């Protein structure tokens, strides 16, 4: 219980401090309040968005896009990582391609995605899956390539065949890397989500940001930003929570 109090204090107090400082800054009216709304204004804007229902629908629509894109990208990323790290032909053929793709940001892919898949959901999935895929592939590939030799040798001298060694040594030994890649991929799915929603969407947090820009409703923009921040941070802490338990030997 005491522990919980400490955690609550550590989580809530800094945020309360930030909001107070923000309110103070806004109250000083150094900047036009229309351009830099106070927390109270943002709070009321959020209340209005909740009442009209757009806040929830946007969050749900965006989360579904992020989750679907993440799922596709992560699955393909892990599988391709397994292939390129274990089968030489795949790494020779695919690594240069992926390394060329990696510097291309997700937002640069949006026009292509819209032409290829239209303005429906598919183009969003594609953009998100693309950026998740590259991050997950890279960490899977790297983790599997750098499994400490000593584990492989130990397993071999204990009678493990190559197939067994893959399942029982290579995968668990690279699990921390793969998991770090998945966590990074989850963060990327949010970053690319906004890029994907800025064009050709009719709902979603990114779309709402763009809509607010057209009417210069900065308080509504801030609601979107806060929403993204809260969702992203929650998602990340879920990944940390799972990671602590799944690769439990790493944190010790």
């Amino acid at each position, binding site marked *: 219980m005491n522990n919980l109090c400490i955690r609550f204090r550590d989580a809530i107090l800094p945020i309360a401090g930030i909001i107070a400082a923000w309110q103070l800054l806004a109250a000083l009216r150094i900047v036009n309040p229309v351009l830099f709304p106070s927390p109270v204004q943002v709070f009321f804007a959020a209340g209005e968005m909740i009442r009209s229902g757009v806040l929830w629908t946007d969050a749900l629509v965006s989360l579904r896009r992020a989750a679907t894109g993440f799922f596709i990208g992560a699955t393909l990323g892990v599988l391709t990582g397994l292939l390129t790290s274990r089968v030489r032909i795949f790494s020779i053929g695919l690594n240069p391609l992926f390394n060329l793709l990696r510097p291309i940001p997700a937002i640069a892919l949006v026009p292509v995605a819209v032409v290829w898949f239209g303005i429906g959901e598919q183009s969003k999935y594609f953009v998100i899956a693309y950026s998740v895929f590259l991050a997950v592939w890279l960490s899977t590939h790297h983790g599997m390539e750098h499994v400490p030799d000593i584990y492989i040798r130990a397993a071999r*001298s*204990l*009678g493990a065949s190559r*197939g*067994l060694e893959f*399942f029982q040594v290579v995968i668990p*030994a690279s699990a921390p890397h793969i998991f770090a890649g998945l966590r990074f991929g989850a963060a990327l799915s949010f970053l690319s989500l906004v890029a994907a929603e800025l064009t050709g969407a009719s709902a979603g947090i990114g779309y709402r940001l763009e809509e607010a820009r057209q009417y210069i409703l900065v308080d509504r923009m801030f609601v979107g930003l806060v929403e993204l921040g809260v969702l992203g941070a929650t998602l990340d802490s879920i990944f940390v929570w799972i990671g602590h338990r*799944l690769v*439990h030997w790493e944190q*010790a």
Partner: protein
Amino acid sequence: MKLSLSIGKTGNLSGAGFGQLFWRLFGRLNPYRRDNDSPRHHPGMSVEDKRSETTERTPLHGSPDERAARALAEPGGPLIECRALTHTYHTRLGTRITAIADVTLAIDAGEFVCLLGPSGCGKTTLLNMVAGFLAPTAGELRLDGKAIHGPDPDRGVVFQDYSLFPWLTVESNIAYGLLMAGMSAERRKAEVGALLDLVGLPHIGAQYPFELSGGMKQRVAIARALATHPAVLLMDEPFAALDAMTRESLQRQLLDIWTRTRKTILFVTHNISEAIFLSSRIVVLSSRPGRIVEDIRLPEDSRPRKRTSPEFNRLYERLAQAIGVEGSE
């Protein structure tokens, strides 16, 4: 810290429980798993066991290892035979480093041989060739008359660095070779229990390697290497990373294990005292390229060898000179 260790031992499901369960299930989810007791499916059997498949394998409890005893009883060739063994590394810069040159060495079953030499003289290289991790550049290498091709459970290896699988419990680490050999769960459990007793750690089976001290880790590593009843135990400076006190206690324990199992041991060290205390035979290698410069057999009746005795010191001086003189060339 100590407190959390004992909690971890009983397995708290609120903590890392689901991860542990995941990896336990994952370990079972492999398509290659066999779970039966038929001796025909024991790839981990030693050379002799393969010869007579019907022989029942005795667990390790106390009594000297059956195989070592048999090997001693029927004098054939040596157990390990190196003839004109050479290994040359090709570095990325295109240079060649001959780490081991022209080593001829015969080790009999039951011997405790220490490979002693200065750092970088090729001790690990030689041991890795016997383990099957490296192929000789030239020369021959035989175990029980058969050429060595790659690693095999008939040679147990204890590494210089910690090599326990961090995602497995101590129990599962020790049982790994037995699982690979297709031994049933009950028999694995019995063997693991006996092995943990042998290394003097009867109560840590459910813990994870990260919860253990360095000395405990190496003792578990020894248990894991002994589990498959290897014909030889290969040890590469297993105690080098430990503090002096732990090191001495582990040396005594290893000696105890050796006298109880009569396992053939090839032990690499650059610590002269350690070599004198442990070995029945000390092979000194010169610095690069490693060549045998001394091959000393120590009388068994001099055990336990006191570090303060004059014989100990005389031998120490002689070995120090052998290493030093060759090292400065």
